[in-house]
């Protein structure tokens, strides 16, 4: 065995060892950066048609296109605002099911009317707040508006 061969074997072994570590970490990549979300099932035909009827020209100033959950146990979830009403609550049949224990089964609803989004409380236990104001009736919201239900805060963005 020549000296050179042994050195090549030595370095080769270290390289292979680190290659294994790289492959292991790349196998764990999904945990670090998240998996690609599965394709959403196509919406029902009538829902799509209702959405088309309600849809307004995009880009009107201040009209939000997406609601993000920015605080609470479901932080990071978001839902597109395409004109159909969006309900928030702990129940499984809500558009955005939340796991916040302070949120009622049917808690709040976002509704589109006359080119303007409104948030309304659905008779929840702990109420829905815009700022410090507990909602008693439909309240108009725009992009950058926030409202709070239980420990969850929802922000609307363009």
């Amino acid at each position, binding site marked *: 065995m020549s000296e050179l061969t042994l050195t090549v074997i030595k370095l080769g*072994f270290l390289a*292979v060892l680190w290659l294994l570590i790289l492959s*292991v970490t790349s*196998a764990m990549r*999904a945990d670090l950066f998240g998996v690609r979300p599965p394709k959403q099932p196509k919406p029902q035909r009538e829902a799509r048609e209702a959405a088309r009827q309600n849809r307004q020209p995009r880009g009107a100033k201040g009209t939000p296109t997406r609601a993000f959950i920015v605080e609470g*146990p479901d932080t990071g979830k978001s839902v597109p605002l395409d004109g159909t009403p969006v309900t928030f609550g702990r129940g*499984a049949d809500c558009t955005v099911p939340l796991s916040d224990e302070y949120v009622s*089964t049917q808690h709040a609803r976002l509704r589109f009317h006359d080119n303007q989004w409104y948030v309304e409380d659905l008779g929840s236990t702990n109420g829905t707040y815009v700022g410090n104001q507990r909602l008693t009736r439909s309240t108009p919201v725009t992009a950058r508006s926030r409202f709070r239900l239980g420990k969850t805060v929802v922000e609307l963005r363009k």
Partner: protein
Amino acid sequence: MSLDRARARTEPPAPETVAPRRGRGTELVLLIFAIGIATFAYVSVDLGALGRVPPNALAYLGGLSAATAVAHIVIRIRAPYADPVILPIVVTLCGLGLAMIHRLDIADGTTRASTQLTWMAVGVALFVCVLLFVRDHRVLSRLPYLAGLAGLLLLMLPLLPVIGHSIRGARIWINVGPMTFQPGEAAKIILIIAFAAYLVQTRDALALAGRRFLGVDLPRARDLGPILLVWLAALGILVVQNDLGPSVLLFGIFVLMIYVATERISWIILGLLLILAGGFAANAVVSHVAERIEFWRDPFIDPQGQVAQSLYGLAYGGLLGTGLGQGRPDLTPIAESDFIGSALGEELGLTGLIAIILLYALLASRGLRAGLLLRDPFGKLLAAGLAAGFFLQVFIVLGGVTRLIPLTGLTTPFLSLGGSSLVMNWVLVALLIRLSDAARRPAPPSSSSSLADTAVTQVVRIR
């Protein structure tokens, strides 16, 4: 890690539309890679030391592949959602250990590597048994006190007159027929299970009752009882059996698990204080401990001693190592057991040793990951305890070998020569696989949503 809050995040979005990734294909590819590395290490040991390809290389490859294949197939059948990287990491570590033991065999003229391979087969057999018989990890939580008692009894076994057996001053072996066995390795796993089951029942009392003092939440005396009991038991074992490692390890695992269960940093502070107090007391009373600390402060008072030789070896290895089979790791006394870390560090260099430590870290992180994903508090605590115990053991032994902390006798998991350690670590990995399978398995879709519909909304109290 919060035990309850994490539940929400793990709810799968829509189980019927998502095909969950099982990762068995990934595991197979990584396993082939791991076996390749193990064989490469084995062959290059012979090339380096003797200049020839070992005649039994194919037999070695076959044996390793057979054991791995059995484990992989059982995972496919019994734990199909298990984490795909756990088994490949374990096989790599076993392979590196076997190669290094074989390398020391060449130097010493012994045949311990084949014995170790046999023990690995026994370990895989137990691995299979655990996966076959423990279908749901929650059955393990049923008898916490009995498990705790069984663990302590196992620890005490070596003190019995006939079967107890003392090697190199430490009385931690028992004779089973012609063989010797370290019951402490089995006791470790049983005690982790007992701790987890006990803490699930008492974590609220430990976390919430008690007073605040200097910004630290102090638990009540009656809740403090068990930790003091374990501390005393650990110290007792140390004094009577003359073995530092397991007692430090056990105590550390217990403190970490209490911390995970209660999320109170005060337990870590309390644990560190107790371990310092215990260390000082042991230093004053037990000569064995005082000697270890003396060697830690100045290893070169005995240049032929283990720590000094280990440091020479690591320095000789340098950054890239001497190459497998070309160093002199056999100069360190008992290099194949506690000091296999320094033997590998000498021949693979800092680069290789860091790779090995990273493999351990990845394995422990997979355990913690399973704990984060699991939905039941017992499983969370068990996964965290197994992973923490595993990594604590690596830290204690490698820290001792590299003179970061005083040397305590512990085996390096999967690398060191020794049947009981290897076999029991395979059992530990089987439990981790079982837990990660439960963690990654998609939840039945109906139960979670119907629960959410009927659950009572909590009321915010304003004053």
